[in-house]
């Protein structure tokens, strides 16, 4: 077969005129362009000014490609930073907003440059139809001198104007032309040898193995440590909990808070947290620190200084080891029970009473400092039913299931929980009820650790609502509701 192919006449693909000097080439190019040929090209050993115009080569569109890709790169940079910094991983650095343009401009700029550079490089290759491994012109021996001292002009046979003899005559008639050469198609087979194909496919398959292994390693469990080529942050130097730090003298890895400070961004209205209207700025800070300490379960040294803490301070030891002490705490509450039952006497009996002379009653918030809506009340009811109703009862009468059972078993140390409808509680300011929920009272444990401040306030408002069910008057019912009730009653 290949023998036959070699015997056939090779196909003519173009005519090539050779020149000795650039001026003749330029003149020839002019002439050929004026004759209407478009599929032409010129080859010179050095850049020749005016050859583009002479051949009628249009300005390249490369600048547009570069501009478009540059702009795209800019938007890519912008989007990348928006998604990563402002959306996926909002992290405040140097107190700058998560989405701040000045910080993003260097990256945008660099990506514009990167994209533009790639656009120039790849666009140039693409527009020049590179990479081309061979060109039929290379088979013409004379053409080697195109890099030395000869100038060439070619006309493609596929040109619309191409007529075998006419074109030949045109080239022959060019001034300064020294030779006209016919360029034939390369007759050697264009297909890749089979061996290269097989080797190529083989290499491609083998090259897929490592990434596949990696992929498998990432998505499978294993009993041996995994090979981790991209470590990201899997392994890092950090102080884990319950380990000793060699860095600090006290050996702690978790650094305790510096006394007298409140962490940035953790400022919450102390009224909201404590239910006490503070009188001084220092009190504010103390409240917050105390709150933090309670929530983290760590012990605050400053606690005793807190005037608002007189009551909870007694309960604190119990809070510290809640799990272990629970049965104890439940067993213990005995002596306070009678006091609770008669709230009028309760206060003096309470151990808080002795504290009173030295520490005046804190400035309790009269009304819960939250926006009370239907949703708040619903939330309050929900939380109340979970945390409070077991002892205080669903209606707040102090007849929760735990209490009933304890009485049934005649537990000697059991004190029935407070009835929420007593005058003592009716006259208490909201802040004090809140404080009781937070820090506990007598044998009731503090719920500050378990219930977020907002929910504690919601419980307070719900308790108020419960109380209204006993103290409310018909006038307080909105007209609409009243009507509904009347309808139901009928």
């Amino acid at each position: 077969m290949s023998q036959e192919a070699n015997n056939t006449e090779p196909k003519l693909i173009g005519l090539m005129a050779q020149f000795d000097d650039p001026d003749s080439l330029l003149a020839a190019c002019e002439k050929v362009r004026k004759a209407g040929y478009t599929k032409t090209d010129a080859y010179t050993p050095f850049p020749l000014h005016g050859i583009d115009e002479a051949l009628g080569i249009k300005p390249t569109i490369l600048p547009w490609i570069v501009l478009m890709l540059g702009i795209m790169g800019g938007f890519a940079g912008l989007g990348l930073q928006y998604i990563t910094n402002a959306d996926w991983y909002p992290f405040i650095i140097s107190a700058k907003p998560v989405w701040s343009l000045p910080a993003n401009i260097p990256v945008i700029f660099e990506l514009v440059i990167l994209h533009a550079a790639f656009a120039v490089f790849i666009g140039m290759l693409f527009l020049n139809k590179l990479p081309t491994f061979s060109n039929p012109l290379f088979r013409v021996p004379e053409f080697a001198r195109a890099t030395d001292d000869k100038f060439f002009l070619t006309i493609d046979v596929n040109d619309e104007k191409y007529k075998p003899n006419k074109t030949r005559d045109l080239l022959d008639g060019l001034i300064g032309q020294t030779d006209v050469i016919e360029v034939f198609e390369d007759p050697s087979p264009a297909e890749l040898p089979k061996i290269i194909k097989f080797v190529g496919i083989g290499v491609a398959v083998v090259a897929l193995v490592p990434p596949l292994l990696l992929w498998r390693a990432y998505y499978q469990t294993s009993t041996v440590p995994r090979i981790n080529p991209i470590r990201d942050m899997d392994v890092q130097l950090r102080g884990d909990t319950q380990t000793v730090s060699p860095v600090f003298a006290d050996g702690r890895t978790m650094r305790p808070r510096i006394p007298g400070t409140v962490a940035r961004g953790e400022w919450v209205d102390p009224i909201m947290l404590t239910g006490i209207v503070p009188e001084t700025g220092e009190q504010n800070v103390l409240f917050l620190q105390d709150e933090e300490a309670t929530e983290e379960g760590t012990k605050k040294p400053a606690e005793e200084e807190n005037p608002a803490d007189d009551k909870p301070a007694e309960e604190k030891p119990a809070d510290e080891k809640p799990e272990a002490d629970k049965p104890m705490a439940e067993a213990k509450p005995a002596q306070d029970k009678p006091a609770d039952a008669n709230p009028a006497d309760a206060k003096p009996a309470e151990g808080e009473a002795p504290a009173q002379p030295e520490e005046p009653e804190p400035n309790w918030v009269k009304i819960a400092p939250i926006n009370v809506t239907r949703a708040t009340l619903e939330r309050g009811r929900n939380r109340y039913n979970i945390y409070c109703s077991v002892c205080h009862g669903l209606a707040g009468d102090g007849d929760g299931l735990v209490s009933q059972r304890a009485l049934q078993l005649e537990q000697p140390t059991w004190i029935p929980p407070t009835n929420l409808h007593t005058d003592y509680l009716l006259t208490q300011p909201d802040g004090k009820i809140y404080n009781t929920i937070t820090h506990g009272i007598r044998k009731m444990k503090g719920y500050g650790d378990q219930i977020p401040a907002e929910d504690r306030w919601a419980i307070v408002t719900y308790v108020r609502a419960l109380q209204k069910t006993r103290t409310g008057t018909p006038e307080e019912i909105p007209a609409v509701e009243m009507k509904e009730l009347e309808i139901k009653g009928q």
Partner: protein
Amino acid sequence: MTDDESIRLNPAWQSVRLVAMAVGVLALLLAMGIGMTQETSSYFFHSYLTSFVYFLSISLGALFFVPIHHLTRAGWSVVVRRVAELLSQNLIPMAILFLVILFPVLFGSHTLFEWNDPAKWEVGSAEYDQLIAHKSGYLNSIFFTIRAIIYFGTWICIARYFFLNSLAQDGNGDKQITLKLQKWSSLAVVLFALTVTFASFDWLMSLDPHWFSTIFGVYFFAGSALSFFAFMTVVIFLLQQDGKMANIVTKEHYHDLGKYTFGFTLFWGYIAFSQFLLIWYANIPEETGWYLRRQENGWAIVAIMLIFGHFFIPFFGVMSRHIRRNKYILTGWAVFILVMHYVDLYYIVMPQVAHGTAAPNFGLIDVCCIVGIGGLYISSLIWFATDKPLVPVKDPRLSESLALQNH
């Protein structure tokens, strides 16, 4: 070619010179008159400084261009080099105009430069300013004057040296002169860089003596070089409209001038942003105060004007090859850039009026200062150009420049 009328200024320009000079002097007197009758002369001095630095920066750009041309053995720019040389000669009248700023400082005025107030460095005085006192070793009227003399001395020496040698070559065609100038241009560039940096610190940055910016000299240089290329484009355009250098400066040269304009537009934006970004990010009070003042009292609008007018709009404006090769459009952009360069300097200087409490208030004094200094600048430019060929006629690279082709 030396006697060719097409490379010499028309005699008609001599009357322009006289008119420009008369208008310039009158405008300056008017500005001074209004300025001095005001409650404080602070506004006048700041406005004068703005216009002064504006024209100074154009000449400084020229002073940068000429040695760089020699240093790089540039071929393309030979035909436009004489215009740059002429522009750099204007540093001589600028030195005289600087006396309006220098004398008050020397005689103890502190309307312009706060640091010149002795109360600021007297320990125990109510006005005592520790930072200014600390800097008083550098920022004091005597050393300030000495430095100003050094700056202008250096600049005028460089400008005259390159200009006179170039003129000498016009006569004798000695190729050794080109080599000699190339040799000295390296030193000239170094001296230029140092003097311009410190001059910008002295005359612009020390308006707010509390401010630090190590990149400010580069920022000022970027604006200078850009405005110089824009101004040279306009000058050459006007000369061509007058029938001069008709076949000497071609669109290829405009293309190259446009490339420089484009490049320095980007450079200015890059430097201006570099200065801003570092100060913004570090958020150190003594640095941010300067920008803070320029974001209040209506200056934010000027800042935004600069971002777009001094960077984005001209950047895309002169990006295209087709625009750069069209001298009419390129000159239009050059004029736009020159306007924005004034806005830039206005933004640097004017917020310091009355030591940093002023709002933008462009008015008659500013116009008079621009017209005044501009008139004198143009008139002296014509004076320097009179009777001299507008291209270096015997430069060995002239033919290369004449045959310039862009790829």
